[in-house]
């Protein structure tokens, strides 16, 4: 027997949905998560799990820096380290002109009051990443950033939600929504779930869900490709990206190299399928081998593309609907939402329980993307 009445219904069992559910449960609310397939099936499970404040848009930095603090104590939140290691993030400069653009970036963040980013020289870069190609001249560095294990993180959040009394309905697809005086009624095939509050955390499908809930939010779809290699002996601690390259390169705890950065494959959102375009992915392989020549003969064993929503300004949608009562949106992380996971739970908890938050989220307002008339 499934409980059908809750205080809050969360649509989407990705990491953001789980994080929101967890905070609301801990605040004493009853929460039901409706997940179309299974927890973490799409973007969350396909993520490179970078925990990065470095080089984010300045508008995201206040919440991102708070999230970073939470990652350093993630065990307190979910009872597991999530495989997080603060081994740093590097943005490598290959030319002197790259150094100048990075220095400008540091000036920009410093003037906004953030001091976590620093410039490092060639020698320090070589010490942090001994296998880096000799032509690299320096880097931007955040020593407190790092990376986690996406599946371990999913598992930890899932277990924490269940332990806090949350209900996760997997294989439950929302097919319709209705609102009246008592709140929302969500149809899932022949099942009905009711709650006064609905959180839309449906990732690539959030636009469709928003429409059901009376909001029309223009969203694009990303299918960021990733590749992972065979296990190799440990040789790299920090996560590495590079100026002017679509690349994110790290070595996981298992020893595999996880290479992404946002090269786009093809998504079929309706069919929930994504496709890898190898002629484009080749660019990532080339970037990896040019920055780390010694990985040339390491074998790629698996590639994939995760489907995720993207917005026109590449910043997420976080906030209450201005049209539909009791509707809250949290999606559209545009390929860099993993690090924000712990903090989105707090933001939504504040918005839902206190109707306001002290955090700076104005640039994530759902309205900014040009909400058209309600359906």
């Amino acid at each position: 027997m499934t409980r059908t009445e809750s205080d809050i219904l969360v649509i989407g069992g990705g990491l953001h949905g789980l994080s929101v559910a967890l905070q609301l449960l801990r605040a004493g609310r009853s929460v039901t998560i409706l997940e179309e397939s299974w927890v973490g099936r799409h973007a969350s499970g396909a993520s490179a799990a970078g925990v990065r404040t470095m080089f984010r848009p300045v508008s995201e930095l206040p919440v991102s820096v708070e999230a970073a603090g939470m990652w350093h104590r993630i065990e307190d939140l979910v009872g597991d380290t999530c495989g997080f290691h603060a081994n740093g993030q590097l943005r490598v400069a290959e030319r002197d002109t790259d150094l100048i653009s990075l220095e400008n970036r540091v000036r920009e963040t410093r003037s906004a009051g953030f001091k976590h980013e620093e410039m490092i020289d060639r020698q320090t870069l070589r010490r942090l990443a001994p296998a880096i190609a000799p032509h690299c001249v320096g880097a931007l560095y955040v020593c407190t950033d790092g990376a986690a294990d996406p599946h371990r993180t999913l598992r930890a959040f899932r277990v924490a939600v269940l332990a806090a009394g949350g209900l996760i309905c997997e294989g439950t697809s929302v097919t319709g929504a209705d609102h009246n005086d008592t709140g929302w009624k969500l149809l899932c095939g022949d099942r009905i779930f009711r709650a006064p509050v609905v959180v839309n955390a449906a990732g690539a499908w959030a636009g469709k869900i928003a429409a059901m809930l009376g909001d029309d939010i223009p969203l694009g779809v990303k299918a960021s490709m990733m590749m992972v290699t065979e296990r190799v002996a440990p040789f790299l601690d920090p996560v590495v990206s590079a100026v002017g390259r679509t690349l994110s390169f790290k070595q996981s705890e298992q020893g595999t190299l996880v290479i992404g950065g946002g090269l786009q494959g093809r998504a079929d959102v309706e069919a929930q399928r994504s496709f890898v375009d190898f002629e484009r992915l080749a660019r990532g392989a080339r970037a990896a081998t040019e920055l780390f020549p010694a990985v040339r003969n390491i074998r790629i064993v698996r590639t994939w593309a995760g489907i995720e929503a993207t917005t026109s300004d590449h910043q997420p949608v976080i906030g209450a609907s201005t049209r539909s009562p009791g509707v809250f949106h949290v999606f559209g992380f545009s390929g860099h939402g993993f690090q924000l996971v712990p903090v989105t739970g707090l933001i939504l908890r504040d918005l839902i329980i206190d109707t306001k938050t002290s955090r700076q989220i104005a640039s994530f307002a759902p309205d900014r993307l040009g909400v058209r008339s309600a359906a």
Partner: protein
Amino acid sequence: MSDHVDLIIIGAGPAGMSAAIAASRQGLSIVVLDEQARPGGQIWRNVEQRRDGALSTVLGRDYAAGAELVDRFRACPADYRAEASVWHIDEGQGTGGGKVFYLKDHQARVLEGRCILLATGAQERPPAFPGWTLPGVMGIGAAQVTLKSGGQIPDGPVWIAGCGPLAYLYAMQLRRAGGTIAGFLDTTPPGRLLPNFFAFLQAMLFQPAPMLKGVAWQLALRCTVPWVPHVAALTADGGDRLKTLTYTTTGGKPVTVEAAHLLVHEGIVPGTHPTLMLGCEQAWSDAQDCFAPKLDEWGETSLPGIFVAGDAGGIAGAQAARLRGELAAVAIMRRLKPSAVAERDAVKRLRSRLSRIIAGRAFLDRYFRPREAACLPPDDTVICRCEGVTAAQIRALTTNGLGDPNMVKAFTRAGMGPCQGRQCGYGVARLTAEITGTHAATVGLYRARPPLKPITLGELAVLDKQRTEA
């Protein structure tokens, strides 16, 4: 960088070679890509080099007969590229055919075809049991491959455990080659003959020669080697290699014996990795206890212009593979060259020969269907060899009520190693079904992620189109 042809055939076994010979008669441009160094597939591996001599006698007449097809294949105008490892196929997105990415001489290459024929064959059904990862334990098919390509047999007494025609055939070949069989642990469950007696008669009627041969092998073996019927469970032990094995017969007590070589076999299943990766619809075959791509009567998959022939489309053996290869070639010719009409009579003959073979197959499928327990091993069994994931770990996860192999993969790493789930796919499907009270048919196999075969970062980097000088 990418060139275009009418037809790309992947695999140079009986199905691929037959299709190439038939389709090239009509003047289609054909490229045949094969992973091995020589044509023949697994069934006729190395047959060109084994035309005569001691090995030819050991392997028997059916093996030697493959040389004739290989000769005709070599002589046909199809462009045959050996040691070409296909690592990705991009379907043409509804336009038919697609792009095939392969490695040859460590170079990544791309080839576009208006039609693609997958003749990629079968693999042994991996029968996970405790200790099956120890050196010294091997598939019977694997032992037969090294007999064909290396002309070698295990050094010392061999335990054979399993059921099915290949187990008997190899045992006979091993004896002819001067090998010693320590014992034959027959895993065919008791009481299989009576309920399948009609199918037995049907097989005798349609396929008398191979059936009689099979019966003769079994009788010969039963009379001459230690024979243990109705073996229900198996465990292999040893430190770094096999030292002892323990078997239990139905209703019997465990027996432990010394063993240096254990060869196992529970039948073969279609290699579904390429069709799974492409997203071709799959169907569960209850008769063969496995998945196979859904095919029309010509072998076309749910994707236009992508065909499957031979055991990759369902197990039916080498003779059927030849016929299915020819049938696929007819359909492909009609598609690409409507002017070249194939004779109706020829197609009719192919179909009637094929249906006789398939009618004879039913008995083998039923009689040698692996016992249920072979698919549901005890907790301490390694299911995913690459990542060392045990049945217990998979059961523990699926007890949470989850029933998707892809989720098992995400949370246990089963299927994430170099073999990409080829060895543990069925094991995970079965265990998931067991726990969630469903059937492997509903649970399904993992999604197959590209690349089909590992490719190095350096090899892939070369495909970057915007590459300037290195």
